[in-house]
């Protein structure tokens, strides 16, 4: 059986820039004037802090010793890029991003299928699945910290029958156990978001095509792999893009559960410590700029590598 994908409707637009009528030109100009105030405000509130961070990153500047401020050029970037801590934290962040997004994609898709297909108690089921996403991340991080606590957590007592979980397992006592706890809380919290995005994609798959495949004798797996998944490719990629960018900036769970101990620090947490705790505005700003560039690179790679068509995902194609 071959893959079946619905093709977008043909449009009449000719290649190259189309000629605009006078009316269209006037409407365009009016549109530009109407959005101009919003654009100016956006530029002021987003561009100014970014330029300020870029400027500060060129200085040795500590908030509590402003008299020692000095221009260091790209020195802060040199220190950061030459420091093993930065690369360790970047690796942690990438591990968390890849692992959580991969698991969330599979589990989230299962949830989306349940929400899409279920006939009985559909509202109740959808609400139950979405509840974790409605909980504040800090609150869920605290809840999971208590759950994994060696003193009063339920994880050790409920799962001690598993060979790799000791009754006195200190989940925050070493790197991988702590990373597991952090990722579990992240997955629990954001899988519903992934399933929501996938549900939107699932509802766009034509039932006619699925039924046609069924009539042709396609099994359930064949319908899934050959019809459903290819037709919701854009939605999947948007979900992956959004969650990957979100996961790369992970902060709350780490701040609450380990505060970066056991080498569980992420790039965002490292930046927070430099800017907020150490009050190193120069070094912290340089880290912020690098974090911003990393997010841009991830977005670019996902969009280009997987050929994500955001317009098609929004149903504009």
């Amino acid at each position, binding site marked *: 059986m071959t893959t079946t994908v619905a093709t977008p409707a043909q449009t009449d637009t000719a290649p190259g820039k189309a000629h605009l009528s006078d009316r269209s030109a006037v409407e365009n100009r009016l549109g530009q004037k109407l959005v101009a105030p919003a654009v100016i405000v956006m530029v002021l509130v987003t561009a100014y802090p970014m330029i300020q961070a870029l400027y500060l990153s060129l200085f040795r500047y500590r908030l*509590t010793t402003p008299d020692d401020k000095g221009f260091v050029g790209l020195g802060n970037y040199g*220190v950061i890029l030459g*420091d093993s801590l930065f690369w360790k934290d970047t690796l942690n962040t990438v591990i968390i991003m890849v692992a959580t997004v991969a698991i969330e994609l599979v589990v989230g898709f299962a949830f989306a299928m349940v929400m899409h297909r279920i006939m009985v108690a559909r509202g109740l089921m959808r609400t139950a699945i979405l509840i974790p996403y409605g909980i504040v991340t800090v609150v869920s991080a605290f809840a999971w910290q208590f759950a994994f606590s060696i003193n009063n957590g339920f994880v050790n007592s409920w799962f001690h029958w598993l060979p790799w979980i000791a009754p006195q397992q*200190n989940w925050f*006592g070493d790197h991988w156990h702590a990373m597991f706890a952090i990722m579990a809380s992240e997955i629990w919290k954001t899988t519903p978001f992934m399933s929501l995005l996938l549900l939107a994609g699932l509802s766009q798959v034509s039932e006619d095509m699925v039924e046609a495949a069924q009539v042709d004798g396609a099994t359930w797996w064949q319908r899934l792999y050959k019809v459903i998944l290819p037709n919701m490719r854009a939605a999947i990629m948007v979900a992956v893009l959004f969650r990957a960018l979100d996961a790369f900036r992970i902060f709350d769970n780490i701040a609450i559960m380990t505060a*970066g101990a056991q080498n569980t620090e992420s790039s965002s947490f*490292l930046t927070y*410590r430099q800017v907020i*705790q*150490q009050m190193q505005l120069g070094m912290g700003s340089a880290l912020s700029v690098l974090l911003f560039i990393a997010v841009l690179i991830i977005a670019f790679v996902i969009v280009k590598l997987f050929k994500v068509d955001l317009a098609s995902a929004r149903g504009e194609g």
Partner: protein
Amino acid sequence: MHIPRRSRGAAAPPRRTSRRRRVTGSLAVLATAAGLLTACGSNGGPPTLVWYTNPDPGGQAAIAARCTAASNGAYKIETQVLPQDASQQRVQLARRLAAGDSSIDLMSLDPAFTAEFAAAKYVVPVPQDVQQKLPEAFKGAVTASTWDNQLVVAPFWSNVQLLWYRKSFAQKAGLDMSQPVTWDQIIDAAAKNGGTVGVQANKYEGYVVWINALVMGAGGNLVTDPNAGVHAKIDVNSTAGKDAADVIDKLAHSKAAEPDLSVSNEGTVLAPFATDKGAFQVNWTFIYSNYATDKATLNDLGWTQYPETVQGQPSRPPYGGIGIGVSSTSKHQDLDWQAVECITSPDNQGQYAVDTGNMPSSQAGYAYDKLKKAYPASLLQQFQQSVTDAGPRPLTPYWSDISGAIQSTWHPASSVSSSTPASSQTFIQQVLEGKKLL
């Protein structure tokens, strides 16, 4: 959509009435606003002094109320509670003060960042005439409140760590607790007799408090010339540093270590101590009041001087507490100092100790009658002796960097070895010079 003219005109009142109502409404709003503004102004009551306090069971709020009443209308103290964690208290205050926030008048400052705030001129040094009116504080409290030879905060309460132990366990282990004991002795005794030694070894300031006490107990100092700023001489890689590392290494790899050693803090050691495995813990003065309702544990609770790092060398117990600082951006500094005198008065220090278990910073505070009734005399004596012997953390504006670098290289406790002091020293120096990320 067409709207019939009748429907718009019929419901509307006559235009003149509408205008009159608008004018009347505006006047009413103006009158109300003027009344409110007058109430907020200087004629509406005494100036309000905002006191940022560390969290406690309400002791500082009660002092604020008493001092407000005692001022006879000169000022009113309002409290704002800071986060639980001392590092977060520092961050919140420093960011406001750096921005010139004039709404802060008084601050309860932890010794860990007093020097940093003083060097940044966030707090005003205590004037000479005010110093003379303050109760005479213990030497440790004065040292922790001084920067650049100036008293920069008024000592309020002094915290100190003791070695708390279960009498029955010490007896079973055959330890003579009337004599100074060493870390080696209590770790061995606990390990051999199925007990544990509770310490603070999470990746936080409390762990550095322990390390500093171990180093000072071995006759060393983490920093020898703290006034030199980023060029301060770091002395972690010393005989004393290695003695400290040996103690941590020994406990971390002993049966006496609690299972949650790497995340332990002042609170996590309380529950195990009250069980059959409870043997020893080093902790602050609040321990006695903490077990007040647990009679079985309280009756078996013993206390003595902080353990020695090296046998025969007197220990230097960790020092904590709070000093009251006056913000340099405050608009009411004269009144602030009057409030400081009231807050740190011997009676308020004594009552605060009764209310919260946090002990006075002066001998006069310990003379408070209700305090003497609330605690055994021998315990109050031990507190005072320990404060006198205490070893404060180095007073440097860069303490948060040094502390953070120590946490990075000494945590978890199970990773500490004889090579830790050397690597830690190199790392601290690189961090201070801006050559390494912390």
